[in-house]
């Protein structure tokens, strides 16, 4: 059984203009110690997913489906139990370079806060642990007295990581952990996250718009589009040869290290991601798809295993022949 099993999760925001589906039936599983990358453009629902995993969304969000964490369903557990699971079971590395730290509290106090909450450690133990955590992420322990504005963006992100490790969680969700950092710092932070989760056997769910970053760090990749996972499989396979046209476009948008040719043909994807309140008919991606078929506007394919491979894609092109003819009949 996986550590995290999400099945058929939907998240819908109630707004003045009606209900807006942000996540539309997402299922995936994460084994203990595994690293899963979740990629997609802004607005595809990936950050909503991250917050939904600990039920952190505002009251206007409604959930259906199941999020099983270590066997328990997050969506139905009591508030008290949920608060106990938060941070001690699963913690989040937010995009801390900007505003995820409290500006008027010393970082040491912010790291110590969850330890004090979730353990019975004495003040002296907490202080020692806070210092250790800071050294672990490459900051001197005396920086515990610093305020967030006294640190650089990269240092703040290290503080976020130290904070996420504070209660020895089983799972860390990293939501755009390197966005807004320059490339050198980005590489350092990724290496740091990778080594820490490997060292402590923590599972990692990393969310980013940058497929190349995820492909470097994670074992498996999932690509989200318009609130759904449209492609899922081993990282190298998805990044190298995506089977969903959107996954392929996303992979092509980043130059590949060691492949100079990819630098000279930067490829973008025309058009904007669809408005979740007004999704296109059929496959949500078909208006932007370069290889669409006639019946793509009518058929909404679900994730389908790619024949002979350990991966799935939600595109009529991966359906076996009998599936395709079935689809063709439906749309006729």
């Amino acid at each position, binding site marked *: 059984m996986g550590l995290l099993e999400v099945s058929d999760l939907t998240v819908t925001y109630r707004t003045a203009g009606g209900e807006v589906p942000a996540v539309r039936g997402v299922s995936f599983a994460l084994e203990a110690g595994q690293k899963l990358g979740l990629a997609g453009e802004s607005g595809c629902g990936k950050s909503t997913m991250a*917050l939904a995993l*600990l039920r*952190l969304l505002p009251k206007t969000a409604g959930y259906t489906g199941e999020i099983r964490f270590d066997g328990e369903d997050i969506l139905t557990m009591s508030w008290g139990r*949920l*608060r*106990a*699971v*938060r*941070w*001690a079971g699963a*913690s*989040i590395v*937010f*995009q801390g370079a*900007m*505003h*995820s*730290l*409290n*500006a*008027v*509290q010393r970082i040491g106090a912010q790291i110590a*806060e*969850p330890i004090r*909450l*979730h353990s019975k450690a004495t003040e002296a133990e907490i202080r020692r642990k806070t210092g250790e955590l800071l050294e672990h992420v*490459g*900051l*001197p322990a005396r920086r515990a007295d610093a*305020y967030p*504005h*006294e640190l*650089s963006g*990269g*240092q703040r992100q*290290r503080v976020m990581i130290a*904070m996420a490790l504070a209660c020895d969680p089983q799972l860390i969700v990293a939501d755009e952990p390197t966005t807004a950092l320059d490339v*050198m*710092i980005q590489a*350092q932070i990724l290496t740091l996250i990778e080594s820490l989760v490997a060292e402590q056997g923590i599972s990692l769910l990393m969310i980013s718009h940058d497929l190349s970053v995820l492909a470097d760090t994670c074992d498996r990749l999932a690509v989200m589009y318009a609130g759904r996972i449209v492609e899922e499989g081993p990282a190298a396979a998805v990044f190298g040869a995506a089977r969903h046209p959107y996954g392929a476009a996303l992979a092509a948008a980043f130059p590949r290290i060691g492949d100079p040719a990819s630098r000279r043909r930067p490829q973008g994807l025309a058009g904007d991601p669809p408005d979740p309140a007004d999704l296109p008919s059929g496959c949500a991606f078909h208006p932007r798809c370069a290889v669409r078929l006639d019946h793509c506007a009518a058929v909404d394919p679900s994730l389908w295993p790619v024949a002979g491979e350990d991966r799935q894609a939600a595109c009529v092109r991966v359906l076996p022949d009998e599936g395709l003819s079935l689809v063709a009949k439906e749309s006729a």
Partner: protein
Amino acid sequence: MADSALPTAPVPQLAQSVRDRSGVRRKLRYYGEKLGGSLVSLFAVILTSFFLFRIIPGDPVRTMTHGRPVSIEQQEQLRRDFGLDKSVAEQFWSYLTGVLRLDFGDSFQFNRPVTDLIADRFWPTVLLVGTSVVISAALGLWLGVRGAWNHGSLSDRVNTGIALTLWSVPSFWLGLILIVVFASGAGWFPTSGMESTGVEGWERIPDIAHHMVLPLVTLVAVVYAQYLMIMRSSLLDEMGSDYIVTARAKGLRDLIVRRRHAVPNALLPTVTLIFVNLGFVVFGAVLVETIFSWPGLGQLFYSGLSVPDLPLVQGLFILFSAAVILMNLLADLLYPILDPRVRP
């Protein structure tokens, strides 16, 4: 590598002391600038005060002798006594040298030194208006926090509605209504003044408190909305911030997230407002003090303006301005303690 190139080894002693010294210098410069700015403002106020009240139409001697059988010679004598027969330059010079010695001259109408008059009226005003600032700030901030945390709820809408309605009510109108209903009507409270005659010793405390109720209610009712609205909107802003999500993700209870994370950040803009209002404490409440015949500085200012009693209004104006300048200075000095980001 810039990020991890931080010196983890102990900083050499010399570098440390150099950094300390430049830090001290920066701090001294910050406080020096704030203090210097305040002194410049105060001096500008002293200059303005003299000319400002000479623009008011009306001849003090004519107003004071109005309706009384006073000969032209007597009026001329009064004018000489007040020093109004001298040239403006001469008057200005004696005003300026007086102010620098903290001597504001003698009041025309009360025939006493302005400093004595101010000393008599100072504490009643500080008592009344100071208490009203404390109560309205506490009430407004409390309701503002509650309102923001449950924004859109029935209690939030009702509280905000009541506060805004009271805010738009003129203070003198509310004061008069309270007098009509609770003082002269029901007879629960005295209609005016600060204490009853013949009350001595410790008995004065409940007596003054009894007199203070209605003016206090008036002052609090018309201003607490300001604190409520600022606290509410500032806290609403903070509640949408990322660090609040971080705090909730840590598994903290809502109440703790609010008290430990949201409110300390949301308080920052409110502190400025409280200090600005504290500066106006000695200015009193001209209208409310006049309606309730509260023997304070506001009422004194009102009677000085109607003459115009130049030494009195000049002295009061300088006092009021000095209080505002002082409180702003205090806010500037206190703010870095509350917000590490603006520490020099």
